[in-house]
């Protein structure tokens, strides 16, 4: 299907907006499943983590006691799918008592720069996030 789209030449700015915490509800996991499938369509993709959405990216998640699959490692695969822009709102993190050190270290390899590892997480202020959101063609909300 992605080939059909390319022929059509349509490239849209797709934003996946994540505002919910993981595990309490399934939205975070099923959002990630959309992102992974969507990567095949060669659109201009970015993800936003606002409000409780920032909790999706915490490191050292261990779900053994609650019996639910830990899906946080899948975020590390996003770079391989050319999903490289994860906007994280600074204010949302700070309000929740977290800093970027509490988040996973997500990277992608830039093939145009000798496969150099580059950070996928882009920390932005709320005002910067407003601008990013205002610039999208399609916003998928979860």
């Amino acid at each position: 299907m992605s080939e059909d789209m390319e022929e059509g030449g349509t490239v849209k700015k797709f934003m996946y907006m994540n505002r919910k915490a993981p595990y309490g509800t399934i939205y975070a996991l099923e959002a990630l499943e959309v992102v992974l499938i969507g990567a095949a369509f060669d659109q201009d993709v970015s993800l936003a983590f606002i409000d409780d959405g920032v909790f999706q990216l915490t490191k050292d998640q261990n779900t053994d006691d609650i019996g639910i699959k830990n899906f946080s490692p899948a975020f590390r695969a996003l770079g391989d799918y050319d999903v490289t822009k994860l906007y994280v709102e600074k204010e949302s993190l700070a309000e929740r008592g977290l800093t970027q050190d509490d988040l996973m270290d997500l990277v992608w390899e830039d093939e145009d720069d000798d496969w150099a590892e580059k950070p996928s997480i882009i920390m932005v202020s709320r005002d910067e996030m407003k601008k990013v959101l205002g610039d999208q063609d399609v916003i998928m909300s979860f």
Partner: protein
Amino acid sequence: MKFGVVVNEGPYTHQASDSAYNFTKAALAKGHEIVRVFFYHDGVNNGTRLTVPPSDDRNIQENWSALAKEHELDLVLCIAAAQRRGILDENEAKRQGKDADNVAEGFRISGLGQLIEAGIQADRLVTFGD
């Protein structure tokens, strides 16, 4: 103009499906095209033919099925979300070794790519959920 509609919650429990239905009807009445209605998360539960709502209330599944028939709407249930929640068509039931299926007329089961495609093809994607 081309609209895509996304429904993320099941029938009755949340108003999402009702709102999406009313929005879709209004868009059609204004002459717009609905490229697809995609049901994700618990939204797939809108597509079971086994609901028996009280006789003095609306029947959400039948409303969608009737609207689809009248306007040749493409109602798509996400396959991954549907499997988790026990929504199967005849083919899927066979493939999964299940002894029953429950998808209603006018709905079809397909992959998440159909959601992305709707986002690309539609001029506007409108999401209803919780």
